């Protein structure tokens, strides 16, 4: 069975609403304010001395620069995920506000971060390219980090109790415990989510490497800006070249980095039986069997590791001394009380400030934001239904046929990581010829960008249905309709829900790039929340940006709580397989 490619979007236990949920809603408003307000504080200047070339000869160097940006953004995300999740895991008190915060951050679209991050970094490095570069990296980070952090946190919480006890009885120090228990336990989740994050990074690359803010345009040499400029000028040979290089890079990264990593990380499964169809990678086999590398490993890395471990052992000597002296409970409670009231006050202050800022928006603007939200919601909904109609039959077909699955699955995974945004210009061109325009185009982009999550999960779900159940359906002569109703749909339901949660989240985010496009020398928009955010961000209209982002973030978080979580619970409780 292949692991579904999902963020560990596992819902917490409770579904009932409490006062903390209200606080969460307010926290959204406060946090978005903070992000947008940052933009207001800075007025940097930045003169691009170069223009983005659409000459094919620049592609190698542009690609290299893009890759470097992505790698730095990824490393930043990885470090953040490890530190953030670990802190939340070790401190219950921290977890209480860190997890909701992560929930909110996840729902804020990348472009809403853009003005704040960019203007802040440009004013830190006035007139230099460095500021914009760093802004791009931070923006890539905002698209990559959250699901990785969630996944690592959940892996940490899922470590079997006896393994933790073993680490204590055998007196592993903090470093050893992290290195030999906690990090390995989270490795699988981290790798799979890295694959997703990396694909997500490509998705927003065009928007991140070339954008306008107020009346300034910011461009960084890279594959994303190459494609963006080529699309804006309607330079089709350049688009084709760019897309080909992009697909090439995606395929090669998948082959040389992600496949081997996915195969390697199988080692960290808790499962105590060997699985039959573990992911394979010939690159990994090559590396593992190479005599040269083995010698290097034995001569260089092992001694280094040993010395490192010894040093650390001495630094963090095992404490035989008491660690868990029962601390006076009152003190802890007081501290906690002060802390949480502090957080509450900050949130309330943020909400107040936001209210002051938002009050200046006229009712007509609000109306347009709400109307846009309705339009976008409709689009998200439509794209979800269409994705389901497309992917469920295909996914079940692939999942029920092991040989087909073996051949198609790796291909599907590569295709899925090709960013739909890069294909968008080509798609739009076709649509304009057919007479659909952006109305249809934006939905198509949402589907292209998000149906993969559903597809992967449906495949995994179909594979998880025991063969006996199909045999039983055959023996009792169930009709095709009955078979879908009583076996296949209930069987894949838990997986389907997981996939849909991810897909809908992605679709909201995708609305920003799909409702507002610079294409062939003109800006094409279609009414929606996504285009409002894009326009507000481009025009530097911070009030509007704040309003639209808050609305979108609230919509995402609230539908998560009210629709998806109960559904997830239902799936977990009622439709879980009996094995």
């Amino acid at each position, binding site marked *: 069975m292949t692991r579904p490619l999902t963020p560990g979007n596992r819902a917490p236990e409770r579904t009932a609403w409490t006062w903390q949920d209200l606080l969460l809603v307010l926290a959204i408003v406060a946090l978005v304010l903070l992000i947008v307000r940052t933009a207001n504080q800075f007025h940097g200047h930045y003169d691009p001395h170069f223009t983005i070339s659409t000459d094919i000869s620049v592609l190698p160097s542009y690609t290299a620069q893009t890759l470097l940006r992505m790698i730095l953004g990824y490393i930043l995300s990885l470090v953040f995920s490890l530190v953030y999740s670990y802190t939340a895991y070790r401190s219950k008190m921290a977890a209480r506000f860190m997890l909701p915060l992560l929930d909110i951050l996840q729902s804020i679209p990348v472009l809403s971060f853009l003005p704040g991050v960019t203007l802040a970094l440009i004013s830190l490095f006035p007139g230099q390219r460095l500021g914009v570069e760093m802004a791009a990296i931070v923006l890539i980070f905002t698209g990559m980090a959250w699901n990785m952090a969630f996944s690592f946190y959940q892996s940490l919480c899922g470590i*079997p109790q006896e393994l933790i006890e073993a680490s204590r009885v055998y007196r592993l120090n903090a470093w*050893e415990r992290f290195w030999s228990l906690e990090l*390995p336990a989270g490795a699988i989740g981290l790798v799979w989510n890295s694959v997703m994050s990396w694909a997500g990074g490509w998705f927003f690359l065009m928007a991140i490497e070339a954008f306008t803010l107020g009346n300034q345009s910011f461009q960084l040499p890279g594959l994303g800006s190459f494609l963006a400029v080529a699309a804006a000028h309607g330079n089709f040979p350049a688009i084709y070249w760019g897309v080909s290089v992009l697909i090439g890079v995606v395929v090669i990264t998948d082959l040389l980095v992600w496949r081997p990593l996915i195969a390697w990380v199988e080692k960290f499964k808790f499962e*105590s039986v060997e699985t039959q169809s573990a992911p394979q990678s010939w690159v990994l086999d090559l590396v593992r069997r190479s005599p040269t590398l083995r010698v290097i490993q034995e001569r260089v890395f092992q001694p280094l590791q040993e010395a490192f471990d010894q040093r650390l052992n001495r630094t963090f000597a095992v404490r035989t001394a008491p660690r868990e002296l029962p601390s006076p409970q009152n003190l802890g409670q007081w501290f906690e009380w002060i802390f949480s009231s502090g957080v509450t006050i900050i949130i309330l202050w943020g909400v107040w400030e936001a209210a002051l800022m938002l009050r200046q928006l006229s009712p007509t603007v609000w109306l347009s934001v709400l109307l846009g939200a309705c339009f976008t919601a409709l689009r998200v909904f439509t794209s979800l239904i269409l994705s389901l109609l497309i992917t469920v039959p295909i996914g079940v077909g692939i999942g029920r046929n092991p040989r087909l699955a073996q051949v198609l699955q790796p291909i599907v995974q590569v295709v899925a990581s090709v960013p739909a945004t890069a294909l968008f210009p080509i798609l739009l061109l076709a649509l304009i010829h057919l007479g659909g325009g952006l109305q249809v185009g934006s939905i198509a982009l949402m589907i292209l960008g998000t149906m993969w999550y559903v597809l992967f999960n449906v495949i995994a779900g179909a594979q998880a249905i025991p063969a006996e159940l199909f045999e039983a359906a055959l023996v009792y002569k169930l009709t095709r309709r009955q078979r879908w109703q009583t076996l296949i749909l209930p069987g894949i339901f838990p997986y389907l829900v997981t996939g849909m949660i991810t897909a809908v989240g992605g679709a909201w985010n995708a609305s920003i790039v799909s409702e507002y496009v610079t294409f062939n020398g003109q800006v094409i928009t279609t009414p929606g929340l996504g285009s409002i955010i894009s326009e507000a961000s481009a025009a530097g209209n911070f009030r509007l940006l704040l309003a639209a982002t808050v609305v979108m973030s609230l919509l995402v978080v609230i539908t998560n709580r009210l629709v998806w979580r109960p559904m997830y619970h239902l799936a977990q*409780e009622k439709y879980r397989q009996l094995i």
Partner: protein
Amino acid sequence: MLVEKATASLIALEKVGKAYEQPSGQPVVILEPMDLCLKPGEIVALLGPSGSGKSTLMRIIAGLIPPSQGQVMYHGQPLVGLNPGVAIVFQSFALYPWLTVLENVELGLKAKGEPLGPRREKALKMIDVIGLDGFENAYPKELSGGMRQRVGFARALAVEPELLCMDEPFSALDVLTAENLRFELLDLWLERRIPTRAILIVTHGIEEALTLADRVIVLGRNPGRIRADFPVTLPHYRDRKSSDFQSLVDQVYKILTNPEAPAEPPTLAASNTTSVATPATPAPAKYQSLPGVRIGSIAGLLELLEDRQGDLYRLAQELLMEVDDMLPLVEAAQMMDLVNLREGDITLTRIGLEFSASGIDERKRIIRQQLLEHIRLVQQIYRLLQAKRHQRVSEELILDLLEGHFTPKEAYRQFKTAVDWGRYAELYGYDEPAGEVFLEAAPTLETPVVT
């Protein structure tokens, strides 16, 4: 005498108890305060049914869990934090799946800061002693259950603990593998090939305890307390067929099947017994605790009893059942007044006889009648249901009721058992997705879905 004991003991528990407070303020007692001391040179078995807190007691001794009262003394010093002289062998092995056998065994040594050379030497030696040669580079998932537990032993013994704690180390293994490993462990111990000074084994198998241990401590449940503490003086490599051994088994069985009676430490004609005083605890009025068994299994027991009444222990042996499997069944049948238990002998009551002679509908009627007569929780649920207008009660209501007497986990188990029994007797139904119990006769809007 007392002073002598304190200096000779490896570990001494002084009035150690464990309890915790529910959010509602209700205290739940896991372990009643107890005194206990472990001396060098002995294998001690902690024997008891599930829920008697034997694992908790072991973890308190290891310093993994702090006691809520009393003190653990290690070499006469109060123990704070982890016990430095203890290693544990876990029921589920608790090997790190991503480390090889050698790396797993080296783990504890590495944490001690041993340099590579001596560390590897010690680990390899222990791998050799425990019979894992040739598997040094294997990963745990490549090994069979028995080999995995060998790794668990090697890892524990490699750190040369003074006290080796074992938490049901053989219960995840098949019968033959377990037997083999038990005797190999005994060999190592008797031939002094391991530096361990004492062994504490947690078990629910009477035979296992009596085969291995020099001293057996029997724990009772609800709340966990010491019911008997007696030495086993039979010479090692004990013959399980011998009458001495069998008589010991019988006596332990008697203690375990008589949870309320003050236990007499088993005595052996052939040995001079030095019995340790059993704390005679006045049993407080307790809420009836339902053993988590299915009516179907009780019915099976009664069927079997129909033509072979008599000694409970022989019956269990014949059925290849452990105490933990057998006792709850007997207890449940006793609660419903279907069997009589006297001195380890089990007989069917009049109702029990009637039950085993009846067909399915009649059986359900008998169980219904017995439940409503004897089982308090079922009565309560039934009355609640009748009082409610819609004849539906949410599970939270019942759990709240139970959590005054049990831990949340145990309360849930009690509830589930009551649901199962009531369902069998057709007293009430349970709507799992909604989490509601409803009166069987009442028309329901939604039929519970069986997956």
